[in-house]
């Protein structure tokens, strides 16, 4: 039963991931990415990692992908330019992909990671809380990594602001304090010139 569910979800996952790169409409591509995240969350639930699965749905599907859809819809993406060279690079890309898939199936397949090599862990009791366990190690054993992740987010914010913020170069507004202090010699400049001899 569990196996059947797994295969259904993984088929949907692989197909939707493939669709992300092949569909013509970028909005559809983003929606297929949502589907891919959602099915991988379902697979995580099968692994009894319910907290991570819910986080994936909330953070990626709920927040990141919605923003992503906004960006895709707002930007005027020229599809013909994006598609340029797709056919040209397809054979090489497919070749690399097929070789990598073959290698991975050979190495990470049932021959090395089968149930006889790594037996499935016994299912946890109903009152076992993943969230609690993650909370316990996140701020103790993985404190350093957690702090570093925070620093990386700060850098991301600095980088985003530094690369996009542009101050208005010239705005026309008056400064009353300077206007009050102005003197006549600031406005009129008297230039003394030598008298010139006039040509006839």
């Amino acid at each position, binding site marked *: 039963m569990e196996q059947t569910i797994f295969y259904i979800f993984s088929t949907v996952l692989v197909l939707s991931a493939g669709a992300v790169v092949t569909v013509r409409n970028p909005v559809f591509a983003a929606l297929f990415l949502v589907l891919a995240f959602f099915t991988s969350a379902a697979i995580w639930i099968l692994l009894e990692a319910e907290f991570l699965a819910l986080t994936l749905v909330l953070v990626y599907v709920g927040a990141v992908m919605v923003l992503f859809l906004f960006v895709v819809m707002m930007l005027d993406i020229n599809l013909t330019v994006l598609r340029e060279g797709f056919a040209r690079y397809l054979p090489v890309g497919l070749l690399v992909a097929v070789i990598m898939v073959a*290698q*991975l199936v050979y*190495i*990470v397949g049932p*021959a*090395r*990671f089968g149930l006889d090599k790594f037996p499935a862990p016994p299912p946890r009791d109903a009152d076992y809380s993943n969230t609690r366990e993650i909370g*316990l*190690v996140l701020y*103790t*054993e*993985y*404190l*350093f*990594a957690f702090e*570093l*992740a925070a*620093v*990386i987010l*700060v*850098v*991301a914010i*600095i*980088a985003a602001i*530094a*690369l996009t913020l542009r101050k208005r170069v010239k705005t026309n507004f008056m400064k009353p304090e300077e206007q009050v202090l102005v003197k006549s010699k600031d406005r009129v400049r008297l230039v003394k010139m030598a008298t010139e001899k006039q040509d006839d």
Partner: protein
Amino acid sequence: MMTPSSFEMPNLLPAVPEIFVLTATCVILLADLYVRDDKKVITYLMSLATLVGAAVLTITLHTGETVLTFSGSFVSDPMGDVLKVFVYLVTAAVFVYSRNYLIARNLFKGEFFTLGLFGVLGMMVLISAQNMLTLYLGLELLSLCMYAMVALHRDSINATEAAMKYFVLGALASGMLLYGMSLIYGITGSLDLAEINAAIKSLDDSKMMVASLGMVLVIVGMAFKLGAVPFHMWLPDVYHGAPTAITLYISAAPKIAAFAMVMRLLVEGLGDMHVQWQEILIIMAVLSMAVGNIVAIAQANIKRMLAYSTISHVGFLLLGILAGTAEGYSSAMFYAITYALMAAGGFGMILLLSRSGFEADRLEDFKGLSERSPWFAFMMLILMFSMAGVPPTVGFYAKLAVLQSVVGVGLTWLAVLGVIFSIIGVFYYLRVIKLMYFDKPVDTSPLETTADMRIILSANALGILYLGLMPGSLLALCVAAIG
């Protein structure tokens, strides 16, 4: 199992330099908001003070012992301390060299320094990583800062293109590295590098294949970050496209951190698979020396030329690591440190010749430098001799030590190839010297520099000469750090 009561407060003392740099950088970030654009020199001085403070802390806290903290994810050891001090030194020199260049291009802003210092923090974390998770986070912190810095000159199409290429390829390499790490984690069941090393010893042949695939993917990711052939495509474009001050930053200190990454991951984590990774590194080292030295000859742009020269130096660095002996590792460490010093000086010279609206990044800009400034022509001569590996500069000893360690493990043919390629490389370094001393200057305007830059750049070049005459102290430091 972890319970709240069994948790012990981690020993923060070994990580005090990291904590100091993080705190000081956050203070600079906030203080910079209140500094007017024409007073950014305050931010600059605060950044230099941070580096000095970090160096003082690292040296005073240096015990010569290996201390683990943060549940074994952070290590403070002699190798890390030595590498960190050189990271501060090189970065401080980079900041000094960059000042005038950045002011002339309206890039002298707080972001350059905060991103630069966060990059230093990333390097420190990378150097002290004892866990694959920390290692990856340190690498990402450093890379993210470098991507943003390359793109900092927003109005330059070249810089934006370079940043885009760097970011996309860097993300791909990070993906490879992560996938390799996940396979190694899957088969050994640990993220801790020492535990991985212990677990690999007891793997059977079938499980060893999984670890091998993981190792290959990890090497691909690392080779990209180092810029070793065949993963070097990004390097000339990024070095060329980025503003020279930022090329200087990414070419110098991060190479020291990259050396530490290879040491931690391959030697400490996968040391037992030495026979396997040695073969891969031999191929990459030979290709890097060949491509770097031969393609550099055809470059007319000195930044591209130095980029290919970097690739060839990475090949030499890999020679020391692949030897797999303590002498090999210490010679590679010596090479990484001296290379960072040479790269800082080399790109610093380009900054010295640049001025507002003029990038001295073509080879012909160096024509007749000896007539314009005999002293700095001589400094460039030392730097070029050192990069080429001509005695009595330190570049010669670095190459010699690396080649000796390769001969020491019976790979004499590899050492011979190394010598042949470095002789080919001498051509393009000597060409710069020929342009400086035997050609007439095209551009006769005087150099626009400040006293601090003149002094530090001269000290940098003379330091290379000094280390070449007396390499003993630094070599002994590297040997003691690895030992």
